């Protein structure tokens, strides 16, 4: 169903500056054209700005969960989300763009196909469910690998909507609750860290087997439909110039049960602490020097 946008904004947090939006557009144009984000130097040259100004914009985009910049902790990884990186994968240097969500800026096992062409790589299983927003009107296939069995998985989407996925028992593990994103010791202010443990599982049984004995894991498992439904509320319009994350109040309330924001336990509706911890994430944003870029909309 066609939707309108931005005419029900109740509260505006910070807004990206026009320069930041132009830089964001420049990054995504490069990703869509070549599969890779530009280097900071290329942005500096294209906009005739100082590196400091570009870094300030990238800092805002990082705080707005649009990009993530490479850091020391991830500069020499050999495995990405449980899979060995391809031999020809080139990781971005420290300070360069690592993710331009939902795309990764290096080769990995989340391969994105559009019209049979593959030059893009997904950033994580969660974001892969709505990656088709970036290719309007086209069928987008994400091919990846299940963490538990190593079997091939496939997600097909169009205009942000999930059309199909295989295997039918596919599950998505969202590894880190919002509250742990920025404040985990050793990863303070690290925007790559939140997605490090997001995996595809071939089935719920496979997930349970993997999870048994891992009491330190704090993530939760969702069906692809739940994740797609949830992300479509926040990611809608991601390809737009003026996009920043939005919180559609009524839509979230109506979908709270179907996407797992509220769960029924002992016949009682209990808010899911995984999502409740978002409040801590907002507080951490300020703590680590980021602004809150969020619109609260009526629907």
């Amino acid at each position, binding site marked *: 169903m066609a939707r*309108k946008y931005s005419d029900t904004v109740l509260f505006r947090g910070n807004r990206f500056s026009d320069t930041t939006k132009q830089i964001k*557009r420049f990054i995504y*144009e490069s990703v869509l054209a070549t599969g890779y984000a530009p280097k900071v130097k290329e942005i500096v040259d294209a906009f005739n700005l100082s590196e400091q100004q570009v870094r300030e914009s990238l800092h805002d985009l990082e705080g707005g969960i649009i990009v993530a910049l490479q850091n020391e902790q991830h500069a020499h990884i050999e495995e990405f989300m449980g899979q060995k990186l391809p031999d020809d994968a080139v990781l971005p240097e420290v300070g360069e763009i690592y993710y331009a969500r939902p795309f990764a800026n290096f080769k990995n096992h989340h391969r994105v196909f559009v019209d049979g062409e593959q030059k893009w790589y997904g950033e994580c299983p969660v974001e892969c469910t709505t990656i088709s927003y970036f290719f*309007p009107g086209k069928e987008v296939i994400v091919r990846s690998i299940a963490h538990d069995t190593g079997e091939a998985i496939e997600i097909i989407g169009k*205009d942000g909507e999930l059309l199909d996925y295989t295997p039918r028992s596919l599950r998505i593990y969202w590894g880190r609750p919002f509250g742990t994103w920025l404040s985990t010791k050793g990863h303070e202010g690290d925007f790559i860290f939140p997605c490090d443990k997001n995996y595809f599982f071939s089935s719920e049984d496979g997930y349970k087997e993997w999870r048994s004995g891992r009491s330190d894991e704090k993530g939760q498992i969702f069906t692809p439909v739940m994740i797609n439904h949830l992300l479509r509320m926040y990611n809608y319009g991601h390809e737009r110039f003026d996009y920043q994350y939005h919180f559609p109040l009524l839509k979230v309330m109506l979908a709270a049960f179907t996407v797992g924001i509220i769960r029924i336990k002992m016949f009682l509706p209990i808010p899911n602490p995984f999502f409740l911890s978002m409040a801590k994430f907002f507080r951490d944003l300020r703590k680590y020097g980021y602004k809150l870029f969020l619109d609260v909309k009526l629907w």
Partner: protein
Amino acid sequence: MKMLVAYFSNTGNTEKLAEAIHEELVRRGHAVEVEKIRPAIAYSWLREVARDFPRYPSITLSLFSNAWKRHHVRTYNQVEEDIQALKYPDISEFDRICVGGPKWAQMSYPVARYLQTIRGIRGKKIGAFCTFGGPPLAVFEIELIFEPMRTLIERMGAQMVAQVCVSSAYHAAGLMPLFRMASRMRFKRPVTDFMLASEYGKNGVLNFCDEIEK
């Protein structure tokens, strides 16, 4: 020059204006491609019209107060709607872009989405064209569509270098009697004198093409 004429047309009036611009640019020797912007869903007449109603009080106030007009243009929320896949989602290959649609109290929703999503717009020279129901009233018709368009285009790093608007003598909510009266009172001429086929319309297209090819 290589040019693109992109337009959304609901009743065919803007399409005629787009065709006139296209023909004139081709006559002048430019290579011109055409992109028709199509909404993903066709809404009912009532729903389409009703979505504009909340803006009417603010627009009416804009006619009487410059301060309010500035406030309205600065703060209103532009509605957008999903559009179908584009033939040219990346316009970087074109030297000039002409974008147009009808005025729906503000920019028409598919045009607003088109401007928000096309790639390669930074640094481009853009011409804007539109059709509206009434005569070319300076504030109500011309400023209230071209100012937001210019603002958005400039924010995206492009430049609006030309504009043309003609009357379609059609209003979806049936306000044409009011516009006919306004035309008689303000211009002492009928609305038909401002349509595409009129001298006003033909000169407008020629001037637009002069400006866009500079």
